[in-house]
């Protein structure tokens, strides 16, 4: 049970990490939000931190030996998922972008 939960958690952090990194790029941010807006600056460090957390969870759960196989491929999976969602299923990405806007109040544009 805890094992499955940890795997799910590693997947979620890796996915959110990739999603934040994608949102931190102007091209993807503009495609999701109104033109002229800028994504909050915290997204890039947040993305990297989440990806680091996923590494930690994978290594804690499966050890370094399996972790060295699992983590890079988990990132591959979540990065592909991010790219596919940006192309075909934007809605959750828009929700995430709005959420990160409201998290950082100073970047809200009128």
């Amino acid at each position: 049970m805890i094992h499955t939960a940890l795997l799910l958690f590693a997947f979620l952090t890796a996915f959110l990490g990739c999603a934040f990194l994608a949102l931190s790029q102007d091209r993807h941010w503009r495609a999701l939000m109104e033109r002229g807006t800028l994504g909050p600056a915290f997204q890039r460090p947040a993305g990297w931190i989440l990806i680091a957390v996923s590494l930690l969870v994978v290594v804690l759960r499966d050890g370094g030996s399996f972790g060295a196989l699992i983590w890079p491929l988990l990132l591959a999976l979540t990065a592909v998922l991010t790219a596919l969602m940006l192309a075909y299923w934007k809605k959750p990405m828009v929700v995430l972008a709005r959420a990160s806007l409201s998290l950082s109040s100073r970047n809200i544009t009128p």
Partner: protein
Amino acid sequence: MHIADEFRKSMNWLHTWLGIALSGVLFAVFWMGSLSVFMYETDQWMMPEARGPAVETVSLDETVLPWLEQSDVSAEQSVFVVMPSVRKPLLRVGVFGGDNGPLNAYFDPATGKQVERTGTFGSSGFFYPFHYSLHINWQGLGYWIVGLAAMAMLTLVVSGIFIHRKIVQDFFSFRPTKALRRSTLDLHNITGLVALPFHILFPLTGITIFALVYFEGAALKPFKGEVFDYTREANGYYVIEPDGVAADPVQSVDGFIEEAEAIWTSRSGTPASADYIRIEAYGDTNSKVVIQHSGPRLQVARSQGRIVYDAASGEMEQDFQPAPIRNALSWLEGAHYMMFRPYHVRWLLFFGGLMGAAMIATGLLFWMRARIRKGLEPTSVRVVRALSVGSITGMIGASGAFLLANRLLPLDIDGDGRAYLEVLVFYSVWLLSFVHAAIRNKQAWRDQVWVIAGIAFLAPVLNWVSTGDFLTVSISQGQWAVAGTDLVILASGGLAVFAALRLKQTERVEAAKAQRRPVAGSLADAASVPAE
């Protein structure tokens, strides 16, 4: 010209031509390799009598030894036993060498009874060797072609990084609504970049696994060219010759296995079980029992344990552990062999393999469209297209046809006849796919993708009809190998339908463009006509 541009240009040239020369082979290797990740699960799908529930404890004394006594096995022959496991539910015993060999028998560990196995090579006997030998055994040529392709793959990955202009900017960019060329290149870049560690690790370890083939001279140099000295040092093998004096055949091996497993488990700290047993010089005074352990369950690194017992006295003759330098390679090789148990790792590696196959296919597609755009004479277009279609969709379709043949061929064909018929179906369908592509030209992609979809939806139905294991049945019985195979096949069918619809849409858009073009051209002509 700037030096960086010059460099990029030469890398581009290398990437293009090396890619074209070897992408057919590389796609076959990655496709077959990906299928091999689940080869024992596919085997269960292809051999209904080998479907679980898996029982891992079995007495060889009650199954294999009586069978050996009945089968007239001589001291000159070698006996091997493959132990059952969750992934391989049947116990297999084989005899090779001698006049009456090779012999094979399968036992169900649950009942201890011998079972008649479906005549098939299965995935582990066909797809798996395909991915490293292409089944070209003459002079080991297949191994060399695959080795060359693996070297090329490493070169392609590195040169690909150099010629990619916007690695960071384009990292998450897939633009399916843009021109087909753009979206194809996007897919090529994404699948290549995200799984980059995989694309380096697998060709590299593939080469090191066959070091003895590719670097024979270097590997054997310290051993003065003697292969046997090398294998004794690296793997602990040594030749066991019969004395020529008849003795009672070995009466019990279960005790040896138990003792060997206890030694390995306490030594490595993770559960280790014997997966391969050999009996040499059967029924001779010098008879030996070799217990081997090569597939660890809960670690990536391959382990290599070999314990040899004297059959008559029961004394331990050898307890082999590889030298530390051998261990340095064992994680790398273990990652490629994937003998471990955790399934989430297996699924991720399967995904990595498919990313590789997708990268190669989209790379080839991108090049082809670029060439056609630049203007290539129609005959060349036809040839290039036929080769690409046959090596991509043809290869996928032929693998599907292999599975269909497995479920459709009558069971009562003797010997290996049935297994070879399945292989014949594979190659016939593959060959036909090239011919079909040459005839249908532009429509070939869509036709073949539809055929793949048809095969994919038919396969689970045939499995259901021939074995009664409909998806609901296999899932409720916990037959995950069978259910998983069905589900993956169905999913690829869904993907094929999506691809076919997408291809149709693209054709429509291009046809519309082609219709507009002459109009625009004539307007321009009209405008450029000087007024009289």
